[in-house]
């Protein structure tokens, strides 16, 4: 497969466009950098289909999807934002239609069925596309699923990669653009293949919990809990789920601004596969005690040893 030119086909399902809004804030690189080919190694990417960005319209637009299903856009990466409803539950109506071609409705699920047979790789952006997210929330009125569940953990694209998930609601702007960029560099043999965890998240971004990366985590190890919003201290007693959520949004949001716990907001697990159901909800109920107890036991011993180690003068 020649990869000099790669088409990107971005579908929006049961989504809010928040992931699209997020990626347009990215800085390192910006989306414009990527699309203009300003970054070495990332040239030749063409946004062939994005319902909200594309220049083409008319039959040309719907035809892109139909043609891609027939292999005319190979190689292409399938990108999904939003969850996939179960259309059988909607009969005789519809839950998610993304277009119409020759008097035939293009339902989201049918389109994914077709595209997933041809795509080089598939990337799910956001918690909805990854694991179902809010539409999948109990009682899941529309039978919504994420791409990982819809295609299955064993699914592989033409490049041999499984579904790549970038969870978060939305994911940090740079997370999205960097995973997409990294996947392209890897496909072209420039960067190593991204290592994925059991939830198909790239470990270089999602390998640590929001708690481990938390800028105010020192208050936890220092034994200072906040008991009111606005009070400086560990946010665990206010319901922080950072200890069970693999996410880097606790650090900052973008360009050095924001960041969940850094601002003072308890993490409520919007990047976790369980979101928005237990154990992430109720969002401001305390996280399960188990992980805290485990960390405290390990930490108590280690803190003693670390303290003792600091009694010796460092030899340089």
């Amino acid at each position, binding site marked *: 497969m020649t990869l000099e030119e790669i088409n990107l086909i971005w579908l929006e399902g*049961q989504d809010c466009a*928040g992931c699209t809004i997020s990626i347009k804030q990215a800085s390192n690189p910006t989306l414009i950098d990527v699309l203009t080919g300003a970054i070495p190694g990332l040239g030749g990417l063409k946004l062939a289909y994005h319902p909200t960005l594309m220049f083409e*319209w008319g039959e040309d637009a719907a035809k892109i999807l139909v043609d891609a299903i027939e292999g005319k856009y190979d190689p292409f990466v399938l990108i999904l934002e939003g969850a996939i409803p179960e259309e059988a539950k909607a009969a005789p109506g519809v839950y998610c239609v993304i277009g119409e071609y020759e008097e035939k409705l293009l339902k989201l699920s049918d389109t994914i069925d077709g595209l997933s047979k041809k795509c080089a790789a598939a990337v799910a952006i956001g918690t909805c596309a990854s694991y179902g997210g809010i*539409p999948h929330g109990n009682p899941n009125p529309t039978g919504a699923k994420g791409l990982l569940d819809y295609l299955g953990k064993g699914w592989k694209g033409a490049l041999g990669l499984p579904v790549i998930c970038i969870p978060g609601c*939305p994911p940090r702007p740079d997370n999205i653009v960097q995973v997409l960029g990294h996947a392209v560099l890897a496909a072209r043999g420039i960067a190593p293949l991204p290592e994925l965890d059991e939830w198909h998240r790239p470990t270089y971004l999602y390998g640590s919990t929001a708690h481990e990366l938390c800028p105010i985590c020192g208050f936890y190890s220092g034994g200072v809990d906040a008991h009111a919003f606005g009070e400086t201290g560990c946010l665990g007693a206010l319901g922080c789920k950072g200890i069970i959520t693999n996410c880097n949004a606790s650090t900052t949001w973008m360009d050095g601004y924001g960041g969940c716990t850094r601002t003072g907001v308890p993490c409520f697990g919007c990047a976790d596969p369980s979101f928005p159901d237990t154990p992430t909800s109720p969002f401001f109920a305390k996280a399960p005690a188990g992980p805290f107890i485990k960390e405290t036991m390990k930490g108590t011993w280690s803190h003693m040893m670390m303290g003792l180690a600091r009694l010796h003068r460092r030899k340089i």
Partner: protein
Amino acid sequence: MMKGKEREITIEPITRIEGHLGVHVKIDTEARRITDAYAYSPMFRGFEIILRGREPFDAVMITQRSCGVCPVPHALASVTAVDQVYGVSPPPMGVALRDLVHGAEQLYDAEVGVLNLEGPDYSEIAVKKFNPEWWEEAQKTKAPGSDVHGFAAIADIMTALNPLAGELYLRSLLVQKAGHNMASIFGAKHPHVHSFVPGGIAKINLSASDVESYLTLLMRHVAFAKELVTVTDDLLDFVLEQGYEDVGARAANLGSVGAYNDPAAYSAKYEEMTDWARKRLVSPGVILDGGLVTTDLVEFNVGVREFIGRGWYSSEWEHEVEADPLGNKIMKEHPWNKRTIPKPGEYGKWESLYSWVTATRWWHWKGDGKNHVIELGPLARMWVTAKAGLVPESTGNSLKFELPAALIPGFKYAGAMEFEWKIPEKPNAVERIRARAYYHAYSAYCMLNLVMAGLELLKAGKADVWTPYEKPKEGIGFGAIEAMRGACSHWCVMKNGVIHNYQYQAPTTWNASCRDPEEKPGPYEEALIQTPITEAGESEGWKGIDVVRAIRSFDPCLGCAVHVHIGKQIVKHELLPFAVPL
């Protein structure tokens, strides 16, 4: 049947809130006018069903996820409703910080709306293709505001709006990032801000340096507002001169719930809502046939009726709430009573049920007793604020304010500038866009005032951001605030400590509403019916640019597929271009 040839155009897909919008129109090709229109949504997620049985607190985080473009008004309307349910009043600093996050979003959203969503419909590419005679004229017409924005002729402005290439289009994409950054300072992130909690805001280590960061970014919007308003005025005055006043026109039936709370006045209490809502920097109110009939948010709330109309829902629910906390009679169709019971139906049956959007109407219960079709959005709220006389900037027929001087590299005009937005003759496509640009400038002005209010509070040692509360078992609440493209209104009924019923109306709910039980069309539908077609060429080749411009002027959030039919035969399938930029 009409005399001339008939042509049908379908615009599809809007989500209930912000995703997939559809419009189906019939055009008399000889008279070159739209004769009938249906607006609908082909996507459903079921948020209100998912909310049942959860903590009211969680609704603040869940409901904003209906819309990634305008999440903050959802968060703010929701947290206001939950403030009431829990019976807690946030401290003034909590209110001010919520306002600052809200304003930050409005600034980014207005820029994107005017220059990246609506602008390309008037770009060189679009005008040359659809209205070539305008292009000739635009090249000859000098831009009156060129000393502010630097474009010599109107045609130069059009070129600057070309998608992904024009100067204004690209600069807007860069400037809008500052809005997200500002929202993240006090909101933790954007889209979907996480710091809004009942009783205030979750922000630690609040200091003057946070406010300073915000102010620095705000000044970029202040500088940009001067260019944005001037360039919009020049372009739109030109478009009006080409005979565009009837495109997207409808009668002046408008509503606003108000925005930007006064930190000293907001108490969250429903019983005091009339007073604190009137002190908002953007006024609440309803205009019927051009006349202001109320500025009372309580009266507005009582008058809201969400009919199922032609929506794919069942209307079988109990009339549980009979009066509001002040004793006003609450109708069965009021969202405190309404339930969400989906009943999916066949697609494209215009004479039957056709949409996932319901038919929300405003019942003038203190006046004629009728249910009115009202339009929401920047034009409506500027109109109400200009007429209401509740803020010093309101003159009765205009809104006057000044932005200070700001010399910032990359921006073209450094001087101070006075703005006056005047109430236009009627709502139409052009005036909706103009109002959005002026609302950007007015929001920047309001945020400057609120930053100063925030600094005053800090100086006075009133830095508390949150009021603790004891959560009750039962409660009822209503919260409403203006979003860029309409208003967010949320209603929550709590029983046994969890959500018994949660209903909310997105900005699009009012404007994209379907036919009601009296067969009255919704605002999108009204604006399309009788819209003239200016598009060049024979009807077979029409792409529906006037339909697109009329619909875009309302600023629906996402891209829509447009299908053009002639009679029964479909000849073209189209996607609306340039819905959301990058």
